[in-house]
């Protein structure tokens, strides 16, 4: 194809593109101007303005009343830090380990596990001392072992540290033998804490203490 023809086609395509762009810009700029334009509703009367301001104060007060006043736990899984807080004050800061995000697929089976630490709002549901680990099915599958039929073969002592705080669905804040891995995302979803920090958190927490994980 002669170069001249290619050039003409190219220019026409560019022209069509520019027409579409300008049309889009025209529509977009009209919409965009609504971000900055002054409020076009009818002028708010002074009395209404005062009512709105009063209502805003009430709303702000309601939100403030919901804010956390007692002790609670905040877990930052990105930086692997646990904060034990009272109101806005941080009482304790601890390096932890949280979920690895890895996936385990059961060979020949349908089950799949994703080892994330759950996010959201929880609360302490149980407090245990010297907890035993009751190994779930995935722990055997991960090691390439057969899943035992005898329940007692699932119990492993001494791997979860001195204390455990359960917050639902099998997830715990517990101790660890792998203190060198604190600060890394290496667990199967639970939160691992060093012994001294865990002791402090355990003692200061009660059943119902809120836990926020993000």
């Amino acid at each position, binding site marked *: 194809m002669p170069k001249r023809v290619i050039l003409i086609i190219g220019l026409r395509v560019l022209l069509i593109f520019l027409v*579409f*762009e*300008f*049309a*889009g*810009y025209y*529509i*977009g700029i009209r*919409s*965009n101007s*609504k*971000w*900055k*334009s*002054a*409020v076009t*509703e009818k002028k*708010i009367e002074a009395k209404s303005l005062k009512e*709105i301001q009063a*209502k*805003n104060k009430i*709303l*702000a007060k*309601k*939100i*403030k009343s*919901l*804010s*956390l006043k007692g002790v609670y736990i*905040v877990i*930052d*899984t*990105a*930086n692997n830090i646990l904060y034990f807080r009272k109101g*806005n004050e941080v009482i304790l800061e601890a390096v932890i380990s949280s979920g*690895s*995000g*890895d*996936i*385990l*697929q059961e*060979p020949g089976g349908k089950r799949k596990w*994703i080892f994330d630490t759950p*996010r*959201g*709002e929880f609360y302490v549901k149980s407090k245990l001392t010297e907890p035993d680990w009751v190994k779930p099915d995935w722990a055997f*599958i*991960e*090691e*390439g*072992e057969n899943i035992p039929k005898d329940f007692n073969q699932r119990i492993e002592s001494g791997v979860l540290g001195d204390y455990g705080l359960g917050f639902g669905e099998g997830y715990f804040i517990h101790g660890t033998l*792998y203190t*060198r*891995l604190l600060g*890394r*995302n*290496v667990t199967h979803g639970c939160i691992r804490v060093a012994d001294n920090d865990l002791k402090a958190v355990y003692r200061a927490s009660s059943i119902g203490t809120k836990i*926020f994980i*993000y």
Partner: protein
Amino acid sequence: MEENQYLEAELGLAKAPSLYFIFDFKEKSVYLKAKGTIFREWEIRRIRFWGNPVPVKSFLLIKKSALFPPKRKSIKPGKSEEKDNFELEVLELKDMPSSYTLSIEGDIVVYVRPKTKSFVSLLRNIGHSLRWYTFPPLKTLWFSLKKKRSYTAIDILLADEKDAKALYWAFLDGLKGIIYRPRSN
């Protein structure tokens, strides 16, 4: 009035037993909160808007998308790594993308990028700016032709890569939040 709507929306989110986000463009910050308490705050260095104003109410984060999304590792049964091995292949903050898109219900798209620190990120931001000035107008035209409400695009620049990665980490699909930019701002 907008502040009233914002407070109403936040009260609704604060009452729920879950985390929520707030893009507060008046304060130039992004917050991750629960019960009205700020857990994490990200400073916004620069903001650009396109399209229709966003109503002040709670929205759902539908999905995050990135050119190179983080990939989870599949564990091979029977071949678990040394427990003390520091070469573990796990999903961590450093694996998160620093430039990505948040798709929020109501055809709202938030582009998140870090401030340029290296030559590579400078090139990436130039590419993004080209996309910002060409793609939204075309999409706006497409939405108009389809008689859909024009979509809204917001472009935010965070302080650094670590902040951008941390926001990607913290914002899970399904998280609810508010986008607040008073018209007087």
